[in-house]
């Protein structure tokens, strides 16, 4: 297994800096992960962490135009937010590493938060809300599914926010407080990966970031989700052409060994063209046109979700009965040696493919450091390889209980008509 060597230092202000040298490239990636995600939001101000991600590009005290400075340096950049964290990444020729570090340090410390920037980005985010959710067929499915599976925990709302109004309600005071609480060095992980020797990279990071004062991040204080004790279901009618079903089960947090077992269960179910759900329910029995299972991989206990669109003339009853039978089979019968080997091979080769891309490596190091130790990246394959067929059975029995399930039936409205 290809290893991802790195060096790590922690600055006095709490910033964790990781450096990974790749002598084969003349590019460098600067990846900054902040442990601030949708789960850190107040229930009346959802969508905030993501809105804030937008504001991070609004300019800082010494760099009024983040993007144009980076573009001048021949770089590309972007960011994303999810329920657990926000990640910023820049890729540029290694000669201009200092520029990326300077930019990231300046906006970590002295972001220019102003009414104008806030007003415009609110508008942009509302359009994003429409483009990716409100105006997409089935676009609100995860709003509904999350709200059903989680009744207390902040995972009950999606990263984009519960409703656009929450985004529109954000005030300058709210934004400034969020910045102070979550965008400080102790709450961040900086990774420098590429054609720069580690010593030099850590040195440069020290130069640009050690002057940033320490901050204070509030303790995690959101409600944990109590155990679900009975099945939940919901029907929702909307302007879509086909019925769809979404089924969510509670599962363990990302760092637990149980996570790996659940993840492998979804691989058995739908990883690749020989997987069970595709072959049996899409190809052979043609109950669904699409059907797949995946895990949300969250820091707090997440979800295992199966979702699919039903073929016309197939009832929810028939589709769900077939799905239930497949999940039941994982409980009653151990997977064969051949099938276990197959999914493990796919996981292993997946790691090999993932390590090729420099940006992937940079992000992965930050991500695993967030989980506890960047060295965990190279230990990942082993955590999968130790899973046995009986482990999978036991995990299936634990996860695929009816009392643990939330089912959303998404109904095609009879008012739907073609555009022709």
């Amino acid at each position, binding site marked *: 297994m*290809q290893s991802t060597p790195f060096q790590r230092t922690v600055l006095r202000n709490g910033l964790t800096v990781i450096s990974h040298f790749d002598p*084969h*490239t*003349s*590019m460098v990636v600067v990846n900054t992960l902040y442990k601030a995600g949708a789960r850190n939001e107040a229930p009346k101000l959802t969508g905030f962490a993501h809105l804030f991600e937008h504001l991070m590009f609004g300019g800082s*005290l*010494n760099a009024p135009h983040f993007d*144009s*400075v980076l*573009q*001048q*340096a*021949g*770089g*590309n950049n972007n960011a994303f937010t999810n329920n657990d964290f926000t990640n910023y990444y820049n*890729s*540029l*020729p290694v*000669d*201009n590493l*200092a*520029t990326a570090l*300077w930019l990231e340090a300046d906006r970590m410390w002295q972001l220019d938060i102003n009414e104008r920037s806030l007003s*415009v980005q609110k508008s*942009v*985010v*509302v*359009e994003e809300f*429409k483009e990716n959710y*409100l*105006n*997409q*067929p089935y676009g609100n499915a995860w709003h509904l599914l999350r709200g059903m599976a989680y009744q207390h925990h902040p995972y009950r709302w999606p990263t984009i926010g519960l409703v656009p109004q929450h985004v529109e309600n954000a005030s300058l005071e709210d934004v400034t407080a969020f910045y102070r609480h979550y965008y400080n060095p102790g709450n961040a992980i900086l990774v420098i990966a590429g054609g720069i020797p580690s010593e030099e990279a850590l040195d440069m990071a020290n130069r640009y970031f050690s*002057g940033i004062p320490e901050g204070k991040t509030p303790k995690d204080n959101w409600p944990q989700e109590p155990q679900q004790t009975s099945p939940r279901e919901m029907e929702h009618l909307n*302007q879509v*052409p*086909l019925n769809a079903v979404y089924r969510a089960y509670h599962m363990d947090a990302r760092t637990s060994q149980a996570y790996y077992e659940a993840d492998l269960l979804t691989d058995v179910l739908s990883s*690749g*063209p*020989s997987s069970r759900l595709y*072959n049996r329910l899409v*190809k052979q029995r*043609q109950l669904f*046109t*699409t059907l797949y299972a995946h895990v949300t991989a969250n820091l707090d206990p997440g979800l295992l979700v199966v979702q699919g*669109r039903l*073929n016309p003339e197939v009832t929810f009853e028939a589709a769900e009965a077939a799905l239930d039978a497949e999940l039941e089979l994982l409980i009653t019968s151990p997977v064969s040696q051949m099938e276990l*080997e*197959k999914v493990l*091979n*796919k996981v*292993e*080769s997946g790691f*090999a*493919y993932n*390590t*090729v891309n*420099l940006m992937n490596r940079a992000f992965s190091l930050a991500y695993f450091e967030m989980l506890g130790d960047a060295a965990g990246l190279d230990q990942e394959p082993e955590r999968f390889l130790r899973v046995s067929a009986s482990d999978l059975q036991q995990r299936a029995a634990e996860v695929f209980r009816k009392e643990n399930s939330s089912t959303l039936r998404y109904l095609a409205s009879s008012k739907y008509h*073609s*555009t022709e």
Partner: protein
Amino acid sequence: MMQAPPISAPGVPNLPNVTISSIGNTPIYMLGNLPQKLMRFDLVFDAGKWAEQQRGAAYFTSKLLKEGTAYQSAEDIALWLDHQGASITIDADADHITLTAWCLARHIPGMADLLAEIAGQPSFPNEEVTLKKKVRLQTLKVDEQKVEFLATKDLMASVFGNSHPYGYRMEAADMEAITQATLVSHYKNHIHSVPSWVFLSGHVDDNTISLLKEKWAGTMGVREKTITTLHKVEPFTPGARHRVLEGAQQTAIRIGRQLVTHNHPDYYGMKVLNTILGGYFGSRLMRNIREEKGYTYGIYSVVHSYQHEGVFYISTEVGNNYAEATMKEIRFELDKLQSEPVGAEELALVRNYLLGNMLGSLDGPLKAMDVYRNLITSGRDTTGFDRYIQTVKTITPAELQLLAVRYLTFDDMAVITVGP
């Protein structure tokens, strides 16, 4: 406070040296030296929409090619791929069908055998054809609820004409008319075990080529190039067309026209001009319509050349009540490029950005082969790359303004909107 670090202009990107070989009439290009032990095959056939005798033939041939051969069923192939942690995807576009295969280095011999079988003896089983049609039809129903899908479809029909291979998008009737015979015919005329090009990249070397020549001898044969119809575009009529999608929460806007192709002296200049207008995050359109006005989550422009025709278009989805204002701003930006030369500073930034971008695109054999493959399969050679770099480095504001005057007149374009 820390000063902004000095910025080095990105170095001149260079195409790496590609090893060229051949088997029969098929050239083989290779880029090795990837430390990770995996590789990628690209087999490219002149079998895209341009070559069709029936609508949808290219698409469905590509999707059915690996769903069964003379010796193996679709399930056999799927199982082998998943078990080896390998994958094959086959896509059709305007001009080509491209088969892309990934595998670990130790599976190259097995993959080589499988590729010869897929390219040489596909069986297009009837049940697989029926299933693919059914699934694709359902997907179309969902797509027809998306403003972005309908707008792009209407744009291409406006620019090239609905009966031109570049201008049409499959309708339900086209899909329903596909039979096994359609695919067999398309395959026999345009694929028949003879790729037009083969590209190898990753952990490969001369031994890989020798192995392939050995394994493919007699299978990758010599076939006379099939003469395909020369399709003429319909005369283009600029003007506005609106399509109603009830309940749409955004309006999709596409503004476009026919343009020159790769080998035209104006092409690379237009690529640079396009970047300034709407080809990156700091573009005129993004800065105005997203960052200043907040009308949209994203607006961009594209200059693209197929093998036989070129196209230019602007693309965005905006809040419904911003549609008119957006149109006004787009016109304003096009007019501005025609009436005012681009400033030196902005041009310098775009030069650096594009060069840095290209450096990133050439980072490592896998990415570099993408660039190379694009050049070769579009009918160009490495001089095309040199011309692009030269243009980026040396094009003047006056030259850009001339191109804007020639090609970017708002009233010369088709203006497509899809909204409530």
